[in-house]
């Protein structure tokens, strides 16, 4: 009995600490629904991993867009980066007869069949960001990393006037976004006098990026620009350069341009530019309304991307494709 009291006491004190801080209840997480009592349609949203801020933003975009339509009710599920869990969640949505399914799949192969099953049962499916195999889905919405990488390369080429010494801090090179942001960029700077003097995998993580940039700074006395595959990477590189008092000599360019991350860094003048990788959340709800309203939609919707710089951020960025 005494032990149980001790344990309860310890847990209560832990919750007290948690109570000191206010959780943000407006962020949609697993199983929370953007609900309206008068809703006509229920949409199931299966997110592959809410561990990534970009995907949290995607859910938030969906929620914000859906909140403007009282006829919609969205149920969110988070598969926690597990393909089989996501498969089970899609099956749950099918069994509860949702009117439409939005899936941002973790991987193509394991999720193709549950998505096809829903589609075959007459549930419209919007596949968001990552593709599945075959054609048994209603619509794919996504941005093109290669195009964004190329846009970043073109911008860098112009900014450096065709020559300079560049550090490339890559995302995970075993992931498709990392590969595409790399090949797009390299394609754009081909036949220029831009030298990639240092490149390293930072695995999308800021602390890794800072460490790699410290190495680049130790090795090279002149660095003109850092191209990082995401904004946390560019920010980590900036912090390393600032610690070495060299941040004024270097331009930092990142990708993703999340409102609370990349766009803030650009506004603060830390990054010279950030290229948007749109979440497609708002577009998914617009498309969902069209489908539910009986309209025909395009089978493939490629999202446009914007570049944010200090000059254009107040005007909402500039389209690059």
């Amino acid at each position, binding site marked *: 009995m005494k*032990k149980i009291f*001790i*344990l309860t006491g*310890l*847990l209560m*004190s*832990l919750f007290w*600490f*948690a109570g*000191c*801080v*206010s*959780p*943000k*209840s*407006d*962020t949609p*997480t697993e199983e929370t629904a953007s609900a309206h009592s008068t809703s006509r349609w229920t949409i199931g949203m299966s997110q592959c991993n*809410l*561990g990534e*801020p970009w995907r*949290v933003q995607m859910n938030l975009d969906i929620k*914000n867009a859906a909140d403007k339509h009282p006829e919609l009710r969205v149920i969110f599920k988070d598969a926690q980066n597990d393909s089989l869990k996501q498969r089970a969640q899609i099956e749950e949505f099918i069994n509860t007869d949702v009117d439409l399914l939005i899936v941002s799949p973790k991987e193509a192969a394991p999720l193709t069949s549950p998505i096809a099953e829903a589609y075959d049962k007459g549930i419209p499916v919007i596949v968001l960001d990552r593709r599945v195999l075959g054609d048994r889905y209603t619509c794919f919405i996504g941005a093109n990393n290669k195009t964004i990488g190329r846009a970043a390369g073109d911008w860098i080429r112009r900014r450096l006037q065709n020559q300079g010494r560049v550090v490339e801090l890559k995302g*995970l*090179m*075993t992931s498709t976004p990392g590969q595409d942001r790399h090949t797009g960029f390299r394609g754009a700077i081909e036949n220029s006098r831009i030298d990639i003097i*240092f*490149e*390293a*995998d930072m*695995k999308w993580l*800021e*602390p890794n990026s*800072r*460490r*790699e940039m*410290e*190495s680049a*700074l*130790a*090795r090279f006395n002149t660095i003109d620009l850092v191209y990082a595959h995401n904004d946390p990477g560019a920010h*980590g590189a900036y*912090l*390393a350069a600032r*610690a*070495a008092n060299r941040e004024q000599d270097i331009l930092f360019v990142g990708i993703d341009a999340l*409102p*609370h*991350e990349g766009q*803030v860094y650009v*506004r*603060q003048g830390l990054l010279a530019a950030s290229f948007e990788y749109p979440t497609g959340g708002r577009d998914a709800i617009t498309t969902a309304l069209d489908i539910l309203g009986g309209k025909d939609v395009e089978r493939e919707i490629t999202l446009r991307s914007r570049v944010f710089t200090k000059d254009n951020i107040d005007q909402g960025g500039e389209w690059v494709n």
Partner: protein
Amino acid sequence: MNENPPKKDPSANLLKWFRSPFVRALVALGFVLMIGFIFNAEGSFLKWQTHRDMLRHISVFGILACGMTLVIITAGIDLSVGSILGMTAVIFSIFSIHFDWSPWLAIPLCLGAGAVCGLVSGGLIARFRIQPFIATLAMMVFARGMAKWISGGQKISTAVLQSGGQYRYKEVPAIFDGLNAKVLHNNIAVVTLIFFACILVCWLILAKLRWGRHIYAIGGNEEAARLSGIPVTATKLIAYGLSGFFCAVAGICQAAQEFQGDPEAGQTYELTAIAIVVIGGTNLMGGRGGIGLTFIGAMTIGYLEKILSINAVGEASRLMLTGAIIIGAVLFQKVRK
């Protein structure tokens, strides 16, 4: 710890000296340093800034390893260190950035939160006899969940979301700049000094306090320790509590260095912390080891990562080389002549 055998001849003494874990750990570090001198990336390895940056980078891992050392000497393990780091980084950022609380309030509360997490793990292990692996695994999951719940899954940065969907931009708190700074004419990072302070505290505990000897006794033979009147439950509780405390120290340093509280921060850091302790030569079975060894272990891992980084070694080769060199270093420490 060991009895001194009667002196025989100088060569036997030399052999004994060489067999001491401390010397072996130093030789492993020397081996890694030698690689650095050979592959010095056009002299980058010879610059002081490389070493200073390595020390900065390894500090957070080193602080986690301090707590881990205490726990491992009791023959336990703490898998929750990375998650508690993430949780306290988030709490510290909310207190400092969103609430504008003074560091005098925010830091003790965060340290307390970390210590409570550690105490809960310790309580489960010491009182309820749950295996350390299971209890701290549960805490690892719980603390990560709490970090995500508190932060709403988003990084806690200086851009604060208002109710209307607009962002309000706040100043970076002075404490973040202070902890991220370098002192002594830009020659050493503040977080590195904090790491050194943690090492010193652990050394005082293990070498100078009676309680430190209790930790060794419990790790060596828990039943014998209990029979000889050592307060096993309290000792274990404090060991895990201190581990949680050091996690909070590391979490605060992490938040200050990133200028934000990332709920995902610290993932897989527990593995690096364990690797640091083991490479140093502290026995995973408990009862043997020390904080000096952990310090050398931290240097070994830190230099290894730095050397691979300045040479821009690709990710695949980097993982394979790290694995191979860790095994090499541990095997070397096991060799008996």
